[in-house]
């Protein structure tokens, strides 16, 4: 519908929207007074997935279901989504910051000739105009941005926006529009899965544990993983630890790694170099454990323990276990 706020669905490739969609739909709903539609490009949707989007506040699900949409390829997705936007005239197109949507929404904005606000952490309506807020310069400053025209295209940093609460019984109308689906240029060869850690994905986790140079070696990360299993946390690392070869790069938190914004961040042996802070300073609660009382991370930590992480970590894991078993 013209004037609606669109949320482009990120799914788990098994037919269910990811929980970051509750955040996008929640924010779009607040800004638009509930005029929210989910746009779902996928090779495999599901009834349960559509129901979930409805409960999160989507009035309508625009479903483009086609085998050509898997895996994501920009040259297939962007023209399809842009064509639909041209027909429907949404007021905004939002999506979570994920590997594919950061590319997709940039391409769609280019195709539509409109502005893109990537990695937004807040929005506000000023009169009839949307203002986006996003961190810049390694998170040292905050930038407010505005668009010259609609649709306002933006990607939303995960874990920052208040998720929509699922309302049982609320349903979305399903529409299956017809759009041109371009032929893929890129030929998919294979997907190489990372070794499963049994822990949540870094950018999606509500709790993140991070180990820095103070971990002393790759063999010691097992104590952080043990804690991760107890509290359901992802385990990341600082650049120092990644550059030392202790952890693969995909676990790096910071400016040249992943940007995270969990409810709780626990840093062990992390000094808090600017480039690390750039990737985690929007975390809600920050805990730091470091031997050095002068470590810069204590300046932004909500709680700190000055001490030896090899004593603190096992004790903390035990204490978490006691708490969560209650």
């Amino acid at each position, binding site marked *: 519908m013209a004037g609606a706020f669109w949320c482009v669905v990120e799914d788990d490739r098994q037919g269910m929207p990811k929980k970051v969609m509750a955040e996008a739909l929640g924010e779009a709903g607040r800004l638009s007074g509930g005029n929210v539609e989910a746009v779902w490009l996928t090779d495999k949707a599901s009834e349960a997935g559509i129901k979930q989007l409805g409960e999160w506040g989507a009035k309508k699900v625009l479903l483009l279901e086609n085998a050509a949409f898997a895996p*994501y*390829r*920009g*040259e297939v997705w962007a023209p399809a989504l842009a064509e639909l936007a041209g027909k429907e005239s949404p007021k905004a197109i939002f999506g979570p910051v*994920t*590997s594919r949507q*950061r590319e997709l929404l*940039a*391409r769609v*904005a*280019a195709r539509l000739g409109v*502005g*893109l*606000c*990537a*990695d937004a952490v807040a929005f506000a309506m000023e009169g009839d105009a949307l203002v986006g807020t*996003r961190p810049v*310069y390694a*998170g040292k*400053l*905050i*930038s*407010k941005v*505005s*668009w*010259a025209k609609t649709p306002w295209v933006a990607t939303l940093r995960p874990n920052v926006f208040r998720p929509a609460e699922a309302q049982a019984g609320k349903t979305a109308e399903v529409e299956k529009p017809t759009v041109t689906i371009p032929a893929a240029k*890129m030929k*998919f*060869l294979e*997907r*190489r*899965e*990372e070794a499963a850690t049994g822990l949540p994905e870094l950018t999606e986790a509500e*709790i993140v544990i991070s180990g820095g140079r103070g971990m002393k070696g790759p063999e010691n990360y097992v104590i952080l993983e043990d804690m991760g299993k107890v*509290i359901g946390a992802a385990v990341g690392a600082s650049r120092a630890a990644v550059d030392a070869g202790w952890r693969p790069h*995909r676990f790096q938190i910071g*400016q*040249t790694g992943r940007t995270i914004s969990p*409810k*709780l961040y626990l840093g062990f042996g992390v000094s808090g170099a*600017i480039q690390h802070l*750039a990737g985690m*300073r929007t975390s*809600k*609660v*920050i*805990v730091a454990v470091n031997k050095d009382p002068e470590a810069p991370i*204590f300046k*932004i930590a*909500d*709680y*700190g*323990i000055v001490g030896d992480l090899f*004593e*603190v970590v096992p*004790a*903390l894991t035990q*204490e*978490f276990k006691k*708490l969560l078993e209650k």
Partner: protein
Amino acid sequence: MKILVAIKQVPDTATQVKIAGDAKSIETAGITWIVSPYDEFAVEEALRIKEKRGQGEVVAVTLGPDRAKEALRSCLAMGADRAIHVNDPALANADTLTTARALAAVIKQEQPGLVLVGRQAIDDDMGAVGAQLAEVLDWPCAYWIMEETIDADGKTVKAARQVEGGLEVFDVPLPAVLAAQKGLNEPRYPTLKGIMGAKKKEIKDVKAGDLGLGSDAPQLSITKLEALPPRPPGRIVEGDVATAVKELVRSLREDAKAI
């Protein structure tokens, strides 16, 4: 094969940034400028492709004010053959789309077989120019690549892009845009010979008019830069390990409600 690398000059991460009087930009005095780290991965990869194939040309291009020439000079010192500097006050407020259009115009003139970019510049962190460039050119693009191999006849690049939970590998027909992720390579340091040689290499100045660009207003504008709101003061939890840990867990549960 001609390879074009689009780079950006950005403040060094460790540099203090201060908001300028217009409240929309930063004070440029006293800033240490560098080539954005992801762009260095892109330059390095271009040089490796040229070395591996034993022939070709690496062209560095940037859009920016006079000072951005230094960044191009760094790329030339690393080994790029020549550089193009899109330097025009009319593009001072360029958003990602304007930048992509300007770069696309350069690419149309240069006709490279491959374009490499960094996954994002570390100043405004938009991470959009590579994707928008591909869109404007109607080329395929692989974002956040961790490895690439070009086939012998230069028609296809096999690229592995980083996604949640793994890598996805594609055969990408050339010409294409590849956006470098950390882990792709380890950028070289310029040698003294490289630095000396860079002074003799060509940096071509280009104006918006040379590229047939109009003076479109940017689609996205910065209306205000603000300092980060300060975090509430933190607290060091004192005591021996057992006491501190107990108190920390209690605080996280009862005060911060974080677990």
